């Protein structure tokens, strides 16, 4: 469990706490106003100057002596902000966590507030110019996105039921997209995405620049050496390069520090050799999200 589970999890995982999905919470955070401003300006988030710095050439800026450290500290403070005066245009208080398919199904089946919609992925549009309908949003965010025509698919039913949402997340997951759940703004939860690395705006900042915009999941992958047949199908699925086929060992090895625990690789395994285990059960990964 990470610090967000302690704060907003009511004794469990933060995304399993029904209170974080409630309309009352959203109203108390003025979520509708926040989300409207954020989504109208989303593509500008990396271009806009924040305290004199934009994200342009962030890799260089973060490596500068002293200034780099200050920038990183300040950026993470903003990303995790739960103060009253956070600014929607810079995405203050918007971050998430990777989840396996099982948890995504529980959320969409039981916790997500209606109405549920599926719209074009913001990040893939912003970073690749691709419009792909794979982001499942719910609660007060649905009404906000509905008013922005660039995110609403033309020839596809975008208002969906719980059952359809579960069906679609399963389809995306099996295609190789990583399920993730998002605070927007913390602690209100209103999105389950099917992400791709590095096209996802959050994963880009985490995997390339080490900023905690996305946390790794509560799980990690484990290979059963007796069942693994060294076919290597799972290696192609991993978007973080944590799996490697070792021909002499005739099996796949895992780099646990690189594993985000999304569980995508399991869909490729025909021999039932991969399973996800709680992150806390692997000594070296305890507390590392």
């Amino acid at each position, binding site marked *: 469990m990470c610090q967000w589970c302690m704060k907003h999890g009511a004794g469990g995982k933060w995304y399993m706490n029904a209170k974080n999905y409630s309309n009352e919470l959203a109203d108390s955070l003025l979520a509708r106003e926040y989300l409207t401003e954020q989504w109208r300006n989303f593509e*500008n988030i990396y*271009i806009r100057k924040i305290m004199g710095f934009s994200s*342009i*050439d962030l890799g260089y800026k973060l490596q500068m002596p002293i200034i780099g450290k200050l920038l990183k500290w300040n950026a993470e403070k903003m990303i995790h902000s739960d103060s009253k005066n956070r600014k929607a245009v810079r995405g203050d208080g918007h971050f998430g966590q990777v989840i396996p398919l099982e948890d995504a199904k529980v959320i969409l089946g039981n916790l997500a507030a209606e109405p549920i919609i599926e719209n074009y992925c913001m990040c893939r549009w*912003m970073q*690749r*110019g*691709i419009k792909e309908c794979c982001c499942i949003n719910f609660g007060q965010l649905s009404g906000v996105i509905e*008013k922005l*025509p660039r995110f609403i698919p033309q020839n596809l039913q975008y208002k969906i039921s719980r059952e359809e949402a579960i069906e679609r997340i399963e389809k995306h997951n099996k295609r190789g997209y990583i399920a993730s759940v998002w605070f927007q703004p913390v602690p209100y939860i209103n999105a389950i995405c099917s992400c791709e690395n590095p096209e996802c705006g959050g994963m880009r900042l985490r995997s390339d620049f080490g900023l905690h915009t996305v946390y790794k999941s509560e799980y990690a992958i484990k290979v059963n050496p007796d069942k693994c047949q060294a076919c290597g199908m799972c290696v192609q699925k991993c978007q973080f390069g944590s799996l490697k086929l070792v021909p002499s060992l005739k099996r796949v090895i895992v780099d646990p520090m690189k594993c985000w625990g999304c569980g995508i690789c399991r869909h490729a395994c025909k021999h039932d050799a991969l399973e996800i285990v709680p992150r806390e059960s692997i000594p070296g990964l305890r507390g590392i999200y």
Partner: protein
Amino acid sequence: MFPKKSPKVTIDYAKCGEHGKVDPRDCTKCMKACDPAIFIIHEPVGVEQDPIDPKQWRITAVWTSLCNKCLKCVEVCPEKAISVSWS
């Protein structure tokens, strides 16, 4: 003491973007050709336009520290608007 400078990826907005012939939203060829996905498509900051459905867009190279100097973007741009330089 200072880190290595990133490659400079510049886009000529007289050829692409709100003043060019091509609407970047219909092209996005550079964004798809770039393996590390360093480009972002966005509304120009500070330009007043319809917040519901903005019509003016431009592309900027944002994650230039990840540029691997393959020059695929230069090759693929139909307007020859992109240039890449490094020292």
